[in-house]
């Protein structure tokens, strides 16, 4: 079966790949572009660890047909840090011990970023809602919620 050419922006950089029909964006990012930050969890839309931003909107890359991002902007955790400096959300996660095994962390950070980009000073309830599609099985949600609230405070005062 023939492959389909696909071009899009990946963390601000133009990329061009060839995909098989039906390939999901997660596979395209990990196996064809080499961005290993979005993770495969359930493949069903239940866990959120594959979360990415498409044109600034939170999406699940495992449920996104790769071809549908043609010409669009895809942002992953790989593009979050600024040079050698961690993004304030990453720094807050480290400071608040919001990552234990770390498998949910890329999705949590993208969901948190999608929230703070729209709402720089969220309430605790809004943070809970924002990460409600992301499952964590070991760290515990409290430290993750606290980290996001701490990062939002930092951003709000910056």
């Amino acid at each position, binding site marked *: 079966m023939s492959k389909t050419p696909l071009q899009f922006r990946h963390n601000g950089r133009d990329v061009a790949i060839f995909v098989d029909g*039906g390939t999901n964006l997660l596979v395209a990012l990990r196996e064809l572009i080499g961005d290993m930050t979005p993770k495969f969890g359930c493949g069903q*839309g239940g866990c959120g660890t594959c979360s990415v931003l498409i044109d600034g909107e*939170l999406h*699940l890359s495992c449920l996104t047909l790769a071809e549908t991002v043609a010409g669009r902007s895809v942002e992953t955790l790989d593009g979050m840090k600024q040079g050698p400096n961690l993004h304030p959300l990453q720094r807050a996660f480290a400071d608040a011990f919001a990552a234990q095994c770390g498998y949910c962390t890329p999705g949590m950070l993208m969901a948190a970023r999608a929230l703070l980009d729209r709402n720089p000073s969220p309430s605790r309830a809004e943070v809970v809602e924002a*990460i*409600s*599609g992301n499952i964590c099985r070991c760290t515990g949600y409290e430290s993750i919620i606290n980290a996001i609230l701490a990062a939002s405070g930092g951003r709000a005062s910056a």
Partner: protein
Amino acid sequence: MAVTVKTFASSNEAATALSSDRTARYLGGGTLVMRALNEGDVSISTVVRANDQALTRIDASGPRITLGAGITFARILSERDLAFLHAPARSIGGPAVRNMGTVGGNLFAPNPYGDFAVALLALDATVAVQGGFGSRDIAIEEFLQSRERQSGALVLSVSCTRPASADAFRYRKVARIKPKGGSVITLAAHLPISGGRIAGARIALGSMAPTQIRAKAAERALEGRTLDAATIAAAASAVTEGTSPSNNALGSAWYRREIVGVHLRRLLSGQE
């Protein structure tokens, strides 16, 4: 296994492609079809898409509203004119799923999903579908009962009449995980009032049968009456009639039958 992806500019062409190929599935937001592909569903060998602007159009200016099949739940939540649909839209998935999942796709979502279709069923919605030989409007109840046979047709839009007041339309989803989780049961009630009495009551249930269903015995108990304690009790005791819930990881059929009356009573009484 790789599939063939066909993308069309118009819903007309997409509907023709869909109706002429039994192995074709229409890709809306991806939450159903991509999940099936990820699970290795070999019954799908063609994925059909349409970039038709009409599929993402909302007409909410008058008493009758029309939602394009490609409207996402996040879009509904951003529309002030659609406030009566915010509770069902918010009850679906997390933010990412709401950015992806569509009104049209939800009509095909199996238990324990398909909550938005429960709300639309209570609102007596009409589903506009396009087959290979033209388009037609189908009452949502009929559509849901025959949805296994509808996969060759393309849903274009869904229309319903706006409830007369915020109190006339009520929605409740019972889930084990909050704010996100599959439905144990989902209830929606539309209670139009005429001359102080209920006229045209609709009670819709999710996860109480293989597809979303109307609780017609409960509707009869409400019809022509005022919404007092005795009427609510009568509707609650009749609500299991005609239901056939299943066992799944979220709850047993027995449990669902036991609690559906309790939740209908709370919904009709205005309790949280």
